[in-house]
């Protein structure tokens, strides 16, 4: 379980997270909606320690992320994250992208790493691109590769930071299909997204973030069909046009 307790985060003088409280339960999908600049991406990057928080606590399976004694490198084996763009390493083939961390972090030998990698790549539907460089993949294929790469580490949690926002609308579908697949397998996920309909379809819980605070939180039906706060209503009106 991921527990976010009263988290505050600033970049210099600018406070972007002003007291976030959130719980993500095992095997559940939690979507985060909000306008640009509301702090959504920052929140995700705080969970795996890429960004440091100034106040509050983040607990992943009872381990405190912001504790100085915590070994972030080993904690990150449990958390997979996919960003909006520039995910896949351009100088490595599809296969090499996935085996890199398997070999260097999980210390698998060449044979094991390849087996695991091939399995994940097949699952995500990129088997025919095994030895191809990312420059030859479409945006959607690159994002799917990034997902496969994170999954290969057998994480307990997957975080998705607006992974379809930079994509051609034609390519969004294949990436969302991958996420549906993961949900059906019971993966615990936090999805930051602009795709409101998709969020309603797959989420168990939805939170709406505005200017660094959680304005509303509840089941998809509550938040998306009958939002209470003005900001939420405004956002949903714009997004669902």
């Amino acid at each position: 379980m991921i527990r976010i307790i009263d988290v505050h985060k600033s970049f210099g003088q600018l406070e972007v997270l002003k007291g976030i409280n959130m719980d993500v339960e095992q095997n559940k999908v939690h979507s985060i909606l909000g306008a640009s600049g509301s702090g959504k991406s920052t929140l995700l990057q705080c969970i795996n320690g890429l960004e440091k928080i100034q106040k509050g606590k983040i607990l992943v399976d009872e381990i405190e992320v912001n504790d100085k004694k915590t070994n972030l490198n080993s904690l990150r084996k449990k958390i997979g994250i996919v960003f909006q763009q520039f995910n896949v390493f351009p100088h490595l083939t599809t296969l090499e992208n996935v085996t890199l961390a398997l070999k260097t972090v999980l210390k698998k030998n060449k044979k094991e790493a390849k087996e695991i990698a091939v399995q994940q790549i097949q699952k995500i539907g990129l088997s025919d691109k095994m030895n191809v460089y990312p420059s030859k993949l479409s945006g959607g294929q690159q994002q799917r590769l990034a997902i496969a790469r994170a999954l290969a580490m057998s994480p307990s949690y997957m975080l998705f930071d607006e992974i379809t926002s930079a994509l051609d609308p034609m390519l969004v579908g294949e990436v969302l299909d991958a996420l549906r697949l993961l949900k059906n397998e019971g993966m615990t996920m936090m999805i930051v997204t602009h795709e409101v309909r998709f969020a309603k379809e797959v989420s168990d819980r939805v939170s709406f973030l505005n200017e660094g605070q959680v304005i509303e939180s509840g089941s998809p039906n509550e938040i998306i069909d009958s939002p209470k706060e003005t900001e939420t209503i405004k956002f949903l009106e714009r997004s669902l046009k």
Partner: protein
Amino acid sequence: MNFVFDFSVNDFFYMVKGLGISVTLTLWSVILGTILGIIFGFIRSIAGIFLNFFIGSILDIFRSIPLLIQLILINALSSIFKFGFSPFEVSCFVLAIYTSAYVTETVRSGILSVPIPFLKSSRSLGLTYLQTLKEITFPLALRVSLPAWVGVTLGVFKDTSLVLWIGIIELLKSSQIIITRTQEPILILTIAGILYFTVSFCFTRVTNILEKRWEKYEL
């Protein structure tokens, strides 16, 4: 005009020997200078404003003063303090520092050219800082830095012609000696030019091949 060619095979070998000195000097200076440049370049890419400015300003001095003066000054210092360094050693020293001033910039811009999201992805997968440096930063930075580094190396090779001023008989000086004897400047300088050109051209060829191979990495 009377074309009397008083130019023998021995003269040619004399010039090739001079070329050899130029190449050796280049090799030593570039190896030392590159190592120093990598260290300074790395420091500059992670250092704060003050350290960055400090190192940058000092290295900048070596790019704002004629190389000839740097050679003369260090040579003069060497005899003042009776260090007893040979002109060759003095040249290596000066050229190495000169090279490092340029290499620092190419290394720094190479490192800074790697998009931060790649580094974030790598750390998020659990790779340590050093692993990320080795697997991600290094290959991608190299691709950006290499063309500039080749330019610097070729520049140093051409600049070795200056060391004739402190007494080293490299290619240009050996040419000059033969010209004084034979009075055939065009012929001899043309041969010298071909020698310079050949070395320079071959070196650029090799890098072109590398660059072609790396084109597939273009995202």
